[in-house]
């Protein structure tokens, strides 16, 4: 079987999907955990910071530290660090 076919089957979006699903991001952070670079672009300004702790009673707890940042290119984006150790992500709709 060619991986083309496998890829196509895997890539076809026919199932139910989530909106605003987090996407893995490449983030360099300072010692305090504030993002300095997001996806290889420097951070010009951190506009806001907040924390979401939820579902702590389940086996998939959510513990995120969100940052609303403006990048050097002028683009505004929201990134968060997953405090459960799953790394950095960008997310819309936050």
């Amino acid at each position: 079987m060619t991986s083309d076919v496998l890829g196509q089957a895997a890539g076809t979006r026919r199932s139910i999907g989530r909106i605003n699903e987090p996407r893995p991001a490449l983030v360099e952070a300072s010692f305090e955990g504030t993002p300095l670079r997001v996806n290889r672009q420097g951070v010009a300004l951190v506009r806001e910071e907040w924390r979401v702790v939820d579902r702590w009673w389940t086996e998939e707890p959510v513990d995120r530290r969100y940052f609303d940042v403006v990048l050097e290119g002028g683009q505004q984006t929201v990134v968060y660090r997953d405090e459960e150790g799953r790394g950095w992500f960008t997310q819309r709709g936050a």
Partner: protein
Amino acid sequence: MRSVEHVFVIACIIIPGFELRAALLTRPGLMLRPAALAPAPGTEPLLGPVTAAAEAKGVRPGMRMGEALATCPSLVLVEQDPSAADQAWEEILRRLEDNGFAVGSEEPGCVHFETGGIERLYGGLQPALRRALAAVGSAWDPRAGAAERRFAALAAASVARPGQVLIVSDEGTDAFLAPLPLATLPLGAGVQAELRELGVRRLGELARLPAGSVAERLGPEGTQAWGLAHGGRRGRVRGRRPPPEIVEVLEFPEAVGNELTLRRALAALVERVLGRPDRAGRFVRKVAVSARLVGGGSWRRTLTLREPAAEPDRLRIALGPKLAELPAPVVELRLELVELADEVGRQLELVRPAGAERNSRLTQGLRQVRASTGTGSVCSVVEVAPWSRIPEARALFVPRDE
């Protein structure tokens, strides 16, 4: 592996090297000799699927043509025949549909369907899949796999032997996927090489890595591969809408390469196909023009109209430029109405459409999008927990196929 008792078992049937097999339908003897599918004109000179005899002589699919001919000088290069492949694949899908399988097909050679509705009809999952393999036909050497996840079903079918049914239970998915090679995954060559350098060669080794590390190192492609190494997402398979089968063919007494003659022939075909009574006045949404070429082989182009139409001029104008892409003189030109709209006329608007009229136009518009981008491409947004503090938990995309 043991059989799975579940409502949404997804089955997959694959025919390895389908394009080559289809191209050899008229020359079955070549299947036993070293042969390979030649690359399409104007593309990189890489081989397509190869026969078992060619593989035994060291020729591999994807090999450079020069290298393959140096490895096996007796290798026969078979010209691509997309028209024969489409036709043969359509016949296979129809045979499956005649046996009650609501199939969804991504590309020739690979078909998925859910077994929930037909297991009781055939007395279980295994007999149903045997029936499906019989419907495809043993001459194609089909293999079947079934699992609760689409990717796992595909992987099962890809390791099954010809005529074999391989069923993977959900709890056994990880163990089944673990020893499979990394090449099973849809990864770019760069990512595959990076993983090999890190010592990752099998799906199980990738699955054991922490998700966060994979995402950080390999990005979204790595995340998707990591998910697939765990079996992929659960999903449903939606059966396709069978095409209407309205075809007109024009055979030339001798090969024609002149574009003006071809355009005239196309105009005649357009008139004939639009005059077919089984079109029942419906507008054309998607159309395919194909040709049988003089030296063997075929050519095919599919076109989705910007909006459904039934005027001959519009079809001619849309299809005419495609004829300039013909790689060789043709001996047969064929025009096929692949998909028809429900509408049979168009009323110019005096007032802004509203209510049922607007909904009907919206539905038609969505069908048009679906015709050009494929099943599952149109989704509705369904709010599930708008109050949630977790953004991705607030709403879902739900495929909207009707």
